[in-house]
């Protein structure tokens, strides 16, 4: 077990390093002159050149990479070329917001998907099951941001029940925070829930065909109990994979919803920083996102080894 974890950790570390290189290379070919953007339309070319040197944009790539990643390792993402503030806090703030948003939506999604998915699986041949799974199918097909727009129109603009967007730090004003969280979380969660429920359904169906369920029935457990006691834990494994992937993709995927509700999340920050060609910031954000995803997969793997004894022994 320890070996497994250690090995995974090692692999994780190496992947992170490689990912950082990829990130750096990708962004080092970004067009658009950061110096020019900083100075604006009235600045002369000479000013721009000077500014570039000042920003250290003229050093060789390898030097810049080592300098950058070296600092990142000690938790220093450098200072933004635009806001001239340390990037770290900016990222953590935005990340915090996005993570809250994503997790809430995922929780909502699960609350909906698990019962719904199981129901549609168990009643797969019954008309109601078919109808319900049809509904979830449609849910999957609706773009999240469309759901967002509609929610805003109805609940914020027309009914004026909830704010149309923006974000309030929970520390400042918790109820306000909740008010601002609800709509985007629902917009994000509804679609994810639909997607998840599909996976729950299929993996429950898968499990219901397993022999050990038949064994459980033969022991005298009713179909329901057999599924509940023996099926769900087994069904959870594939669903968890999907969940991990979903959360991962949502970190960026939420950007669309963040835009609809003008929430200063990580995705939005990324878009802004890209627009401003705030290279250090963009690199930082991308790296954080990537590492976060890798971390998630890593955790999911570990979770498997906890759920599934077979993986514990087999390295």
């Amino acid at each position: 077990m320890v070996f497994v974890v250690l090995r995974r950790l090692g692999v994780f570390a190496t992947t992170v390093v490689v990912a950082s290189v990829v990130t750096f290379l990708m962004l080092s070919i970004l067009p658009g002159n950061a110096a020019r953007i900083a100075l604006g339309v009235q600045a002369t070319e000479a000013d721009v050149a000077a500014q570039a040197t000042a920003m250290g944009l003229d050093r060789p790539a390898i030097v810049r990479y080592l300098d950058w990643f070296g600092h990142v390792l000690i938790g220093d993402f450098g200072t933004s070329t635009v806001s001239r503030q340390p990037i770290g806090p900016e990222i953590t703030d935005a990340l915090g917001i996005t993570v809250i948003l994503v997790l809430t939506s995922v929780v909502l999604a699960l609350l909906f998907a698990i019962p719904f998915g199981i129901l549609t699986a168990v009643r797969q041949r019954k008309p109601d099951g078919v109808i319900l799974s049809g509904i979830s199918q449609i849910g999957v097909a609706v773009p999240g941001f469309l759901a967002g727009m509609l929610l805003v129109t109805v609940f914020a603009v027309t009914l004026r029940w909830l704010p149309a967007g923006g974000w309030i730090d929970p520390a400042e004003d918790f109820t306000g925070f909740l008010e601002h969280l609800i709509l985007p979380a629902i917009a994000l969660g509804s679609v994810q829930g639909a997607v998840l429920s599909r996976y729950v359904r299929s993996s429950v169906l898968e499990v219901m065909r397993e022999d050990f369920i038949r064994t459980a029935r033969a022991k005298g457990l009713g179909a329901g109990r057999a599924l509940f006691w023996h099926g769900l834990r087994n069904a959870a494994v594939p669903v968890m994979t999907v969940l991990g992937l979903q959360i991962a993709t949502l970190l960026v995927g939420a950007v669309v919803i963040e835009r609809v509700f003008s929430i200063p999340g990580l995705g939005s920050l990324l878009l802004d920083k890209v627009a401003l060609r705030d290279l250090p910031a963009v690199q930082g954000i991308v790296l954080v996102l990537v590492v976060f995803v890798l971390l998630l997969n890593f955790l999911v793997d570990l979770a498997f080894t906890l759920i599934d004894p077979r993986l514990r022994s087999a390295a």
Partner: protein
Amino acid sequence: MTAIKSATPTRRPAGHGGGATLWAGLVLIGLVLVAAVVSAFWTPFDPEGVFSDSILLPPGAEHLLGTDSFGRDVFSSILRGAQISLLVGTVAVGIAAVLGVPFGIVAGMNPGRLDQFMMRGNDISLAFPALLLAIIFGAIFGAGTVTAMVALGIGTAPAFALIARSGTMQIMSREYVQAARASGKGGLFIGLRHVLPNISGMLIVQASVSFGIAVLAEAALSYLGLGTPPPTPSWGRMLQDAQGYLFIEPLLIVWPGIAIAVAVLGFNLLGDGLRDRFDPKMQVKR
């Protein structure tokens, strides 16, 4: 002991409903396809021109679904928009398959070091979601249909690689592969002649599902302004434009919404149908 397994009667694939879903999917996709093809030759009005005299007309006899802020016939735009969606889907899935499948097969056929190594690589590319790539590529090469397609393609490739790999590993354990090797067939032959045909089922399923995702993603990208540039009609951008007219002409948001839903639903249903259709033994099982 596999012997005993196959000796006992194999369970029939899940659900006869498969057929129904399959057909429903095909019909919906058919609709989109027809729209795309027809619009290539004929649309009621030019979906790219500007008609200052017919701005924001409500649905009516002349303009079935009304007109937008440029006086364009929405119906025409919807028809033409199908092209972009299909184009993006096809190219993205194509790229994903071309990159992912051989990668996955090679990894699956060479268990051990190489496989491990390749899968790590795959993990890393998995860590760059399509949307992230789209944003970065958009900044590098400038936003546009091509950029979006490529980004989506590369972003989806790892999924294909994973499926292809797990499928390949199943096939490689089959005895007919042993037989082929025993009669001196090389890796390439086995890969092309035995593995690929036998995992094609799951690949097609994956493709059809990815297609739906790609259509959605294209919409999202267009909404962020990273997608198809105007005047070429794209459902996603139609949504974004319509957002500004939510109070003047709410219907403008409905049509492209429906269009997208139909396309995505179509491909998802197709995917599910096919999954039920194909031999259950071919399903990925941890």
